[in-house]
C-alpha cells in the first residue's frame, strides 16, 4: 500500500539530517544496525519459545513459571524496545524502501499481533501463574495462541528479510 501521503512523508523523512547522515555512513552503519536487530530478534524468539513451552508444560504448583515469566518478560520488553529503535533507524535510512514495502507493512501487523499475544499472556499470568491450565478450554486456547505466536514470529523474520526484495 503506497498512498500519496505516505510518499510525501517518506520524502520529508529522507531530507532530515539523520537520514542524510545515515546515507553518508550507510556502508558500516546500516549493517551494524541490522546485526543488533538480528541479535535482539534472536532474544525475542527464544524467550517467546521458552515462555510458550513453560505455559504448556509447567505443572500446577511449579513456581519456576513465576520466576521465568518475570525474567522472560523483561528480556522480551527490552528486546522489543531495541528492535523499535533499530527498526526506526533502518526506516530513516531508507524511508520509501521500507515504509512503502508490502513486506514491511506485513511485518508491522505481525509484530503488533505478537505483542498483543505477549501482553495477554503477561497480564493473565501475572494474576494467576497457572491461568492457562485451569480448564481444558483454556488449555486448548493457550495452545492456539502459542501456535499462532510461533507462526507470527517466524512470519516476522521472513517479512523482515523480504523487505530487501519487495
Amino acid at each position, binding site marked *: 500500500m503506497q498512498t500519496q501521503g505516505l510518499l510525501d512523508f517518506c520524502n520529508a523523512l529522507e531530507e532530515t539530517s539523520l537520514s542524510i547522515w545515515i546515507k553518508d555512513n550507510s556502508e558500516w552503519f546500516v*549493517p551494524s544496525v*541490522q546485526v543488533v536487530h538480528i*541479535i535482539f530478534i*534472536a532474544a525475542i524468539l*527464544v524467550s517467546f*519459545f521458552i515462555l510458550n513451552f513453560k505455559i504448556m508444560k509447567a505443572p500446577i504448583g511449579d513456581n519456576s513459571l513465576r*520466576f521465568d515469566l518475570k525474567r522472560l518478560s523483561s528480556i522480551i520488553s527490552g528486546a522489543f524496545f531495541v528492535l523499535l529503535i533499530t527498526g526506526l533507524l533502518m526506516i530513516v535510512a531508507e524511508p520509501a524502501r521500507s515504509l512503502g514495502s508490502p513486506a514491511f507493512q506485513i511485518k508491522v501487523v505481525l509484530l503488533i499481533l505478537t505483542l498483543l499475544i505477549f501482553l495477554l499472556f503477561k497480564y493473565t499470568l501475572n494474576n494467576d501463574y497457572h491461568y492457562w491450565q485451569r480448564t481444558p478450554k483454556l488449555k486448548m486456547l493457550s495452545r492456539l495462541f502459542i501456535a499462532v505466536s510461533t507462526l507470527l514470529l*517466524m512470519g516476522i*523474520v521472513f517479512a523482515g*528479510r523480504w523487505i530487501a526484495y519487495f
Partner: protein
Amino acid sequence: MLNDSDLGVLIRESDSLFPFIESLHVLAITCFFGSIAMVDLRLIGVSFLEKPILSFSRVVLPYTWKAFAVAFVTGLLLFVSKADTYSHNQFFLMKMSLLMCAGINMLFFQFATGKNMDKWPTSEALPAAARLAGFTSLVLWVSIIICGRWIGFTLI
C-alpha cells in the same frame, strides 16, 4: 562448477527461491544464536544461574543443533547459488574461518573443559575455563553474524 549446477541456476534465477532460503537461514540463525547464547550466558555466569549447567545444556542444546542443521543446509544452498561470488568475498571467507574456530571451541569444551561438568557447582560461578569457553563462543557467534550481514553488503 557449483555455480553452474542445475540447483545453483534454479535458486539464482528464481524470483522467490533465494529470498525464501535466505529467510529460512536467518530464522535458523536467530534460533541457533538465541539458544546457544543462553548456554554461553549461563557458562559466563551472567544469567540462568539457578539452573545447573549440565541439565540446562541437555535441555537447550538439542534445539541448538537442530537450528544449526537448518542454518547449515540453507547456507549451503545459498552458497551453491552464487558460489563464484561468495568464494571471493572476504567476509564469507572470514565467516567460514570463524565457524571453524567456533567448532573447535565447542569440541574443546565438550572433550576437555566440560569433561567433568557433572561435578561443577550447580548454582554458583563456574570454573574460569568454562567462563572463558562461554565468552569465546559468544564473541565468535556474534562475529559470525556480523560477517554474515556484511556479506550482503559487499557481494559484487
